[in-house]
């Protein structure tokens, strides 16, 4: 008995989706799982998560491209509407994961400052006992209140001619 070539093609295309879906899901989910607050990070898993983070935009775009190509092909060899809809749904999931791979949740949650504004020391409303992180470079003296630094955490700044990042 000769196997139905269309059936074999459909099976292979389903495998492509599954692989694309699995690879994209892992690329997005693994770094989130490892690099999350209130969890201890081991050196190896952190290194792997950061490498995955670095390459996941490319990985997920390749997966999305492959899933889309598989969809076009599958559409031609599959006449049943339910399977076609499932194929569209699967491809959409891979595409969504490709978008999600470009989003860093931490960068959405925390609002670093790129263009900080400053006021004269005698013009700001700070209590005398507020803690500030201070720096002096040349004649330029800056203070970063801990009250706001503990929210922004990262301030990209210029002090005189020196580019610094204030962190807390």
């Amino acid at each position, binding site marked *: 008995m000769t196997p139905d070539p269309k059936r074999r093609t459909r099976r292979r295309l389903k495998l492509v989706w599954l692989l694309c879906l699995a690879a994209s899901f892992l690329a997005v989910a693994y770094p989130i799982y490892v690099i999350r*607050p209130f969890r201890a990070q081991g050196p190896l898993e952190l290194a792997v998560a950061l490498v995955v983070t670095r390459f996941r935009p490319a990985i997920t775009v390749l997966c999305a491209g492959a899933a889309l190509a598989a969809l076009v092909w599958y559409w031609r060899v599959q006449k049943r509407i339910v399977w076609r809809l499932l194929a569209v749904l699967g491809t959409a999931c891979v595409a969504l994961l490709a978008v999600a791979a470009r989003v860093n949740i931490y960068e959405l949650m925390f609002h670093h400052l790129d263009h900080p504004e400053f006021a004269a020391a005698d013009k700001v409303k700070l209590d005398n006992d507020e803690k500030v992180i201070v720096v002096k470079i040349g004649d330029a003296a800056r203070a970063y209140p801990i009250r706001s630094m503990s929210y922004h955490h990262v301030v990209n700044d210029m002090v005189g001619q020196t580019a610094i*990042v204030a*962190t807390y």
Partner: protein
Amino acid sequence: MWTRDVAGLRLTFHLAGINNQNFLMRDEETGSYWQQISGLAVSGPLKGQRLTLVESDELLFATWKAEEPAGTVLKDVPAFAGDYAPKDWDVHMKRARTVINFPEHGMKGRDLILGIQAAGASRAFLYDQVVKDKLVKDRVGTESVLLVVGADGQSVRAFKNRIPGVAGAPDFYRLAANKPGVLLMDAATGGEWSFQGCALSGSAKGTCLERIPMLKDYWFDWRNYNPNTTIYGKTD
């Protein structure tokens, strides 16, 4: 606090992750990840590069303003100001749990310490102990250091305990806080010294002690990155 120029690039950093409750920064230019506490690139094209430390202090606002009346202060961003922390944020954080712990020598994860790295060694000083003692004379590795508490009773600075032209570690002692701007005297020059570490009188007048970088941190974080650290008053 770090400089942003490295490997011929000027980097712009975002908070982009966490590593055992010390955050990771990502730079926009190369996508490399940097550890906040060490300034070391831990992943990406610049892996292995290190940012240059910028000397900074953590002071009370009144103390800083008195020293730098022409200084400028980071303004609140109105869109986020409602979410800013209370001014005793670090006290609130002492109750937060930690994911790694080093319960040696009776230390608790959220104990606030002042950490110094010098001469290839690292040493932690319990903040509460330093504030109580007001002047700490100690050694970090082979380096003789002074930790000085400001007149406000909370701000702390660290110096190398060396006066140019004076042999050995000079013997500083703390003065009663009855002369504005003067905190210390030293036996070798008979000079009075300010919280900035500068001699106001005596034969060393006009010279300043060399600052030594010091990090105010939680014990668990300091110990994680300084596994061989000693602890003032506990491991001697």
